[in-house]
């Protein structure tokens, strides 16, 4: 189907930060040299941490299982290079800042796949459970940053069938350009991934949502889909957080995912990011585990920027050194600037969720002032929450009030803090509130 001419968007809230994508959006993805050593974390995803299944001195091949998923909401972890296990020890997980088990592998340079992996599969003869099993086996998680295990999303509850599958190519975070590049460079494969997902969940309709600031990607996909009446390319208004799952669904279908823990499948929708669709395709077509990912490396703190394919477990410090880390660079963010996580040290390993490495100079935290009640956080919240009030409730540790105000609905997109003229640390306090509430509830459960 030809591209939709109507530009769609979610109806309320959102912000327009500067895109800052010019530096890397024209740069083709380069495949980086595999590093001499990788540190593969057992936490690469939302859910239970995987358990190491190799020990020191074990020989591993590329793609071999090194961490076994624990339970349903968890994901397998594989060796990104072939070589020898140097150690199984703890390393810092960049998302939580907490130490987690990691398998350290010394690269033997052979880059040899384990047996039976990376080979064409008989896809036509497979049924849906077999395809999902391959996705599960290959450790595919959401690569847009959320890292939710893909096999779970591909198995929606029977009572809520999925009718609409979305490939999320909005890429609304400033600076990040990998999905843009992937849509241009792997157009057919992205579409193939979408078709496979539609086949798995038996959905009649497919959509590729792309923000209007990527006209070349819209054109490439529309052209490739000219003859396909089931898949529609949807140009989206450039507005953050256009690529948030709920906002994308509402922008295109007008449906709202139910609050209080509702799932996209409750309204017949399933959303996967561009890179995730490719990883799902690799898993099903080739039985290729997720051991590398595309990442945008950019920011004024680096001499040179670009889009790269990097092996999971690669040291971020090594990547920064390669790109020329400037003396006065003072901030490292993994992910985009709106939701990415600032790191206290450069020596952390790349994980599956890292779509961008952003290094900036002259970063600072502006001084915070009292809330002036301007209502901008309310006006710009895409979820209709009152973030300012909520953060003040967290500050006062009034947990019931914070929950009543909708703290658990908040997705931490950051629109509120972005627009706040008093420079209040709204998201900071809400994140603190969620962690603290969880801790208190766990404690209460233990003692009571």
């Amino acid at each position, binding site marked *: 189907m030809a591209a939709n001419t109507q530009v769609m968007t979610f109806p309320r809230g959102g912000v327009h930060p500067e895109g800052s994508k010019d530096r890397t959006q024209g740069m083709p993805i380069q495949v980086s040299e595999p590093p001499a050593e990788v540190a593969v974390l057992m936490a690469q995803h939302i859910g239970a941490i995987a358990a190491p299944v190799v020990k020191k001195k074990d020989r591993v091949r590329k793609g071999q299982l090194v961490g076994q998923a624990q339970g349903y909401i968890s994901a397998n972890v594989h060796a990104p290079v072939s070589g020898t296990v140097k150690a199984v020890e703890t390393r810092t997980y960049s998302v939580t800042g907490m130490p987690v088990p990691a398998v350290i592998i010394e690269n033997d340079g052979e880059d040899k796949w384990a047996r039976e992996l990376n080979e064409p599969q008989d896809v036509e003869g497979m049924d849906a459970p077999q395809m999902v099993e391959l996705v599960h086996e290959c450790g595919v998680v959401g690569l847009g940053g959320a890292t939710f295990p893909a096999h779970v999303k591909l198995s929606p509850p029977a009572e809520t069938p999925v009718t609409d599958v979305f490939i999320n190519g909005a890429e609304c975070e400033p600076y990040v350009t990998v999905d843009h590049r992937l849509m241009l460079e792997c157009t057919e494969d992205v579409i193939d991934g979408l078709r496979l997902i539609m086949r798995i969940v038996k959905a009649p309709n497919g959509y590729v949502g792309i923000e209007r600031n990527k006209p070349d990607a819209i054109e490439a996909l529309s052209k490739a889909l000219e003859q396909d009446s089931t898949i529609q390319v949807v140009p989206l208004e450039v507005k953050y957080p256009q690529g948030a799952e709920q906002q994308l669904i509402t922008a295109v279908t007008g449906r709202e995912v139910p609050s209080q823990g509702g799932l996209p499948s409750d309204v017949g929708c399933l959303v996967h990011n561009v890179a995730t669709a490719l990883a799902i395709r690799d898993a099903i077509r080739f039985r290729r585990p997720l051991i590398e990912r595309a990442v945008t490396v950019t920011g004024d703190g680096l001499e040179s920027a670009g889009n790269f394919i990097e092996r999971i477990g690669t040291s971020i*410090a090594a990547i920064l050194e390669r790109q020329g880390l400037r003396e006065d660079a003072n901030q490292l963010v993994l992910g985009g600037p709106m939701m990415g996580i600032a790191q206290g040290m450069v020596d952390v390993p790349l994980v599956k969720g890292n779509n961008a490495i952003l290094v900036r100079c002259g970063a600072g935290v502006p001084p915070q002032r009292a809330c002036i009640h301007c209502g901008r956080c*309310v006006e710009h919240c895409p979820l209709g929450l009152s973030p*300012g009030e909520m953060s003040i409730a967290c500050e006062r540790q009034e947990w019931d009030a914070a929950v009543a105000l909708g703290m658990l*609905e908040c997705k931490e997109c950051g629109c509120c803090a972005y627009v706040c003229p008093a420079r209040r640390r709204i998201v900071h306090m809400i994140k603190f509130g969620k962690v603290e509430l969880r801790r208190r509830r766990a404690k209460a459960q233990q003692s009571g």
Partner: protein
Amino acid sequence: MERQLLVSSSPHLRAPDDIRTIMWSVVVALAPAAAISIYFFGLHALAVYVVTIAAAEATELACLRLRGRPLAHAADGSAFITGMLLAMVLPPDVALYCPLVGAVFAIAIAKHAFGGLGCNVWNPALAARIFLQFAYPVQISLSKWPVPRMLWGAPVDAITMASPLAKEGAAARFSHLDLLFGNGVPGSIGETCKVALLIGGAFLILREVIDWRIPVAYVGTVFVLTWLLPTGEGAAPWAADPFYHVLAGGLIIGAFFMATDMVTTPFTRAGRVVFGVGCGVLVALIRRYGGYPEGVAYSIVIMNTFTPLIDRWVRPRVYGSRTPKPSVRQA
């Protein structure tokens, strides 16, 4: 690696607008009305501005110092606005100690005693205006107003005249056009030239500093109610003329610059409509059935008091809260 990295919560970007840029754009928006008011009422009006602004800033510095807050906050423009607005709602011939006392009251009592910028319950300038009204009923006369310099037409041969909203006024002495430009219209220093105020208000709306809903709801309600509410016997000839009510007195300055003070008004769009309508109802009731000719200051301060309640009752709909969850449907 020995490198100091900044660790802070996302988002790592901030929009360009902060408290300073917002406050100073309000000052810019008030500038046309302030400039023409000095043309209308001469150097004494200028002196009133100087006194209120200087006293407001000095009191701000003193309060920040006493409260152990950064003195740089005095440059955020909020005290400057309070000073400017207070001058604009005082009579042009007011003795200079009144604006001095008023500015100190506005900043020290109405603002800092409640916790400073962001924590005050009432608009500081209006609170001070009402305070002065009671403290100096003779100096702040409501019956005799100085005659302004004309923009066009023959000057009036008098030193003082009655307010355009005075109930004793036997005839409508001002055309709508005169009222719109403030030509020969007596009144508080900064309230008479509606065109200048509307230019400033439009600037703030376009710059998204104020929400258009408040002035529209406020002025619209006054218009409709003064048009529809029955007038009593012996009412002034303009009593049922809604345009006259909108253009005479302090409604325009109040609706665009005081009822939109973000600190003291609701933070949701719907709440702001409630606030504006409430102000409008109060003004119409005061003007039609009260003994007081004006009512704008009281209406806003009374509605300021209700702001926390409006914020509690009028809330935006939470995303997805009306979509049934299949699991709930089954239960």
